């Protein structure tokens, strides 16, 4: 018997019904995450990364809704679960870390209090929960955790807050961690520390991670595979090394060229011309066509499907070779 992947998302479609038309924030996204694998979901602002992660947790804020697709966690369809069953999944099997460490902790309780409350929800007494909070803070390498456990979020630096967030997400021992731009709001040295910590925790616990980011540097550091998403669709997906070496989709290439590089010192940074399409009226054909340097005639008529070029490496572009 084949063990199903930890998470299998297929044909996910999330819409936002607005007064001025339906916004297709995520349109037919499919990917899998194996046990112990780190998948990077890369794209620019508003392309549907965060909505994808919220869809998995079924926490898309109204008027958004998951319109179609299947989300299988260890073979169980999350979209078919009732609210109570889904709540239990959120608590125990999927953890989530957010971008903004300033606002993602409750300002009126100490971090220990918050972690202990999460621990308490999974059984055990108060003292045990408090001890667990200290352990968790030690696990995420908060220095002198025993003293800091009583600190309030505003007393911690951004990096420490992000560690506390991580402790909070991991206290229930989830198999899948969704990290939504966890390092974006931090400065570079702290970013590196948090990425190190994430990598270590991931390896130690054999946890799977869905890493949402717009930073290809983060992807290179941490991820095994990467999916590039543009205007609600995955345009390219494959192993990290492969994508960095030989990107096939013009958008991926563009993204990679946007990275600052010493060889281009003194010259202006590259940027992809134009803006992403309006998601209320996605153009016929390829969504990237209006901005694509290699566009051909058929791109504007037929939307290219994601096809596998080499084992494990798929791309949705008829032009690229």
């Amino acid at each position, binding site marked *: 018997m084949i063990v199903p992947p930890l998470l299998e998302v297929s044909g996910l479609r999330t819409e936002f019904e607005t007064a001025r038309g339906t916004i297709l924030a995520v349109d037919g996204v499919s990917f899998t995450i194996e046990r112990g694998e780190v998948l990077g979901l890369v794209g620019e602002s508003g392309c549907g990364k965060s909505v994808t992660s919220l869809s998995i947790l079924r926490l898309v804020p109204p008027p958004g809704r998951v319109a179609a697709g299947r989300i299988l966690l260890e073979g169980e369809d999350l979209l078919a679960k009732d609210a109570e069953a889904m*709540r239990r999944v959120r*608590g125990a099997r*999927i953890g989530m870390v*957010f971008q903004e460490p300033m606002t993602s902790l409750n300002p009126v*309780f100490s971090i220990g209090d918050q972690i202990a409350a999460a621990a308490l929800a999974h059984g055990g007494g108060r003292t045990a929960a408090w001890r667990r909070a200290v352990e968790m803070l030690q696990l995420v390498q908060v220095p002198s955790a025993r*003293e800091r456990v*009583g600190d309030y979020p505003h007393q911690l630096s951004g990096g420490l807050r992000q560690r506390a*967030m991580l402790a909070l997400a991991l206290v229930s021992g989830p198999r899948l961690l969704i990290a939504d731009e966890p390092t974006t709001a931090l400065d570079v040295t702290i970013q590196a520390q948090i990425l190190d910590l994430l990598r270590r925790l991931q390896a130690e616990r054999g946890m799977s991670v869905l890493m949402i980011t717009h930073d290809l540097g983060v992807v290179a550091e941490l991820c095994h595979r990467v999916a590039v998403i543009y205007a609600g669709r995955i345009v390219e997906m494959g192993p990290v090394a492969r994508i960095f070496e030989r990107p096939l989709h013009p958008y991926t290439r563009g993204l990679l060229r946007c990275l600052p590089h010493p060889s281009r010192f003194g010259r202006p940074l590259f940027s992809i011309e134009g803006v992403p399409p309006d998601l209320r009226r996605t153009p016929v054909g390829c969504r990237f066509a209006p901005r694509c340097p290699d566009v051909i005639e058929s791109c504007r008529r037929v939307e290219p499907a994601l096809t596998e070029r080499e084992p494990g490496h798929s791309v949705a572009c008829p032009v690229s070779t």
Partner: protein
Amino acid sequence: MTDAAVATDALPAPARVRPRPSFRAVFGITVLLLMSASALLAPRLAPWDPSRQMLLKRLRPPAWEARGLREHPLGTDHLGRDILSRILYGGRVSLGVSLSSVALAATLGVGLGLSAGFFGGRTDAIIMRVVDVFLAVPYILLAMGVVFALGPSLLNVILVMGATRWVQFARIVRADVLSIREREFVVGARARGNRAPRLLLRHVLPNALTPIIVVATLELAFMIIYESALSFLGLGVQPPTPTWGWMLADGRNYIATAWWLATFPGLAIMLTVLAVNLLGDWLRDALDPRLRL
């Protein structure tokens, strides 16, 4: 104070220091305790029966004035009743009614405001339309109707006052909840599988406490006046039971010739409201961990 300022400048912020009882807190608590104690002990403290009329001694000024009488320290009113005794007795009604009606209004309003803001959609629409109705109909008119139907009693007055003023709480709480529920820690708590009641009580309500305390202190002052307005219309606590608001309204007619009729109950109201405001102010700061430095 200066010591503390120097200390915080010189050292990194200390981890946790309990808020020191400030002047505001000490003053507020002392005044409120004195007020409540004197109201509770009114029968023992008051030199006279508050409704006893002594027409020969009407409109006597406080004891220190030329025409003042030693047995009436704060003077007498137009029916010759002792003002001090009436203030002591009046405190029972005024404090009791205003505190209980604010408590009732806050409970109702905070509960409904929380649900409206948090659940949104239809719940919000229904609750806020009810709020609109309450705001559109003058509350005095509403209170008149209800008291008229139920009959004027102390309990009914409290119920009516609470039930007409909850909208103040509901509106302010809802507005605050609308922004709090979008903050990431609420989404995060939801993503950790917390149920709605827990989200509300642990994550949303504590962060909405500041405006609630402010509104509650303002409403307390309002309720004292509100009660007197109802009494004035004959719907509140019935004369001859003294209340501060009623004494104030009554003394208004004599303000040019006998200032003490309105002044002393006015001072009692002012002192109470001031004490409650200072206490509320201090409470707000004391409950905010960000200010505990």
